[in-house]
């Protein structure tokens, strides 16, 4: 497959070559909230940019803020005005593609899904990572919840320096002692 190395458009798409979407790719899909939006309220980010037959995000949302509709291969559409950032969509997404981000002064906060053991504990110092798994900055775990309805997908909330809000997607896996 010939690739034109001069095409910035192709260079910026990394989902099918590196495995994770680039920020440019996500912005083009309209799923990256602005800093103003994240400062105003917690913003759901649905990093689901490929048409696969899937809609649990839609059925999980009590506010009707996420719409997939028919066919179920449609990409989810988020209505920020209806969203209360309750976070039920985070463990509902089988693709672990939903996070919630917000900004408060110098700190960014992220709520993300987590399915590894050992899990993090409240107050723990962790390393936040970007979409390629590269360490970005230190972070602090604010809470970990895993009620029965999550069906074993924990939701972790962590704080980290605000300047990294766009890159950070998760935290580094811990290893067994």
């Amino acid at each position, binding site marked *: *497959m010939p*690739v034109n190395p001069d095409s910035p458009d192709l260079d910026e798409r990394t*989902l*099918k*070559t*590196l*495995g*994770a*979407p680039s920020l440019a790719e996500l912005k083009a899909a309209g799923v990256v909230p602005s800093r103003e939006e994240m400062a105003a309220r917690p913003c759901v980010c649905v*990093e*689901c*940019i*490929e*048409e*696969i*037959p*899937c*809609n*649990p995000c839609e*059925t*999980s949302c009590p506010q009707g803020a996420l719409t997939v509709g028919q*066919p*179920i*291969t449609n990409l989810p559409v988020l209505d920020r005005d209806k969203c209360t950032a309750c976070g039920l969509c985070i463990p*509902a*997404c*089988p*693709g*672990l*593609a939903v996070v919630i981000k917000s900004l408060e002064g110098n700190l960014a906060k992220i709520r993300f899904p987590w*399915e*590894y*053991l050992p899990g993090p504990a409240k107050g723990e110092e962790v390393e936040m*990572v*970007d*979409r*390629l*798994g*590269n360490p970005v900055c230190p972070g602090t775990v604010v809470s970990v919840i895993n009620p029965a309805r999550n*069906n*074993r*997908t924990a939701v972790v909330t962590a704080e980290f320096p605000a300047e990294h809000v766009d890159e950070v*997607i*998760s935290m*580094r*896996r811990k290893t*067994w002692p």
Partner: protein
Amino acid sequence: MERETRPAVVVGAGPAGLCAAIELKRAGAPVLLLDENSKPGGQLFKQIHKFFGSQEHRAGVRGFEIGKDLLRESLDLGIDVRLDTEVVGLDPNLNVWAVEARKRSYTLEASRVILATGATENAVPFPGWTLPGVMTAGCAQTLINVHRVLPGRRVLVVGSGNVGVIVAYQLLQAGAEVAAVIEAAPALGGYGVHTAKVRRAGVPMLVRTTIVRAEGSEGVERAVLAEVDGKFKPVPGTERTLEVDAICLAVGLTPSIELAALAGCRTFFVPELGGHMPLHDEFMRSSVPAVYVVGDIAGVEEASTAMEEGRLAGIHAAHSMGYLDREEMERRTADTRRRLRALRQGVFGEKRFVAKERVLAEKEKECP
């Protein structure tokens, strides 16, 4: 309405076979479900991830939980399930030759046979592929999720389709490191959400890359990789070595069509669905009208599509045996077909839908 009393025999108690047997029994038809394994469920009990789809496809539910529900349903219905029973023969007159526990052999006369025999994993040969530690992705998944044994500390996954990336994720969950997922094609194959969750865990994904050889004395110690050109040939000078102690091959599956071939079912080559597969019509009937094919034997797809195909065949077989009238059969299969159609859309599903349409057209042409 005259009813056939010889049983419908379902071969294979995976998601497709279980659903076929459930629909037959629900309609009141006599059914026997045979499986060579000591536990039913096929591959479902190895699937610890949440499934895709919509609520009516059980989306968000983990695969093994869907397996448990199907088992409970088949027990509640009182389906006659015979485990440790290998079906080794099937003739066009529907004599089913079964071997129980490798000891007792018997034949069953069936009125309908539903083949839900699944698929076999492909392997890719390379120097060193017989070293201990080289295994298929399904083998690694069985080790970690059924037997709870880690196949290696640091694993290379060859192949980036959904099977490869899901097994890579489950290896991480089991506590292994995944050194890389490699893909010979220029683009990764699996769903982006699957690759993204593995990538953010720090696993490199390398496209246009192949395995050249595995090295080690007693078992795998290293894998040598190389970049490939447009014809999938390794490019000299691009070799690099990864320290790994296991190599998982996730390079596709091939429908297990042996019994269908014995029964005389016409086959057709469909590369998108895994290779040679029996022709079938919209009710999953093969060219031998009393033999149905469902699930991966009828083209490699997913558990969710396999379950719907099993239902289609079970409902239609019950109708053809006189246990459901045409109207009821059509009502029930219409629901199933609508759910099936929903799963065969989008960039991934459309290709399979088109391939399946080709199979139906060929069946219509070859044996109307």
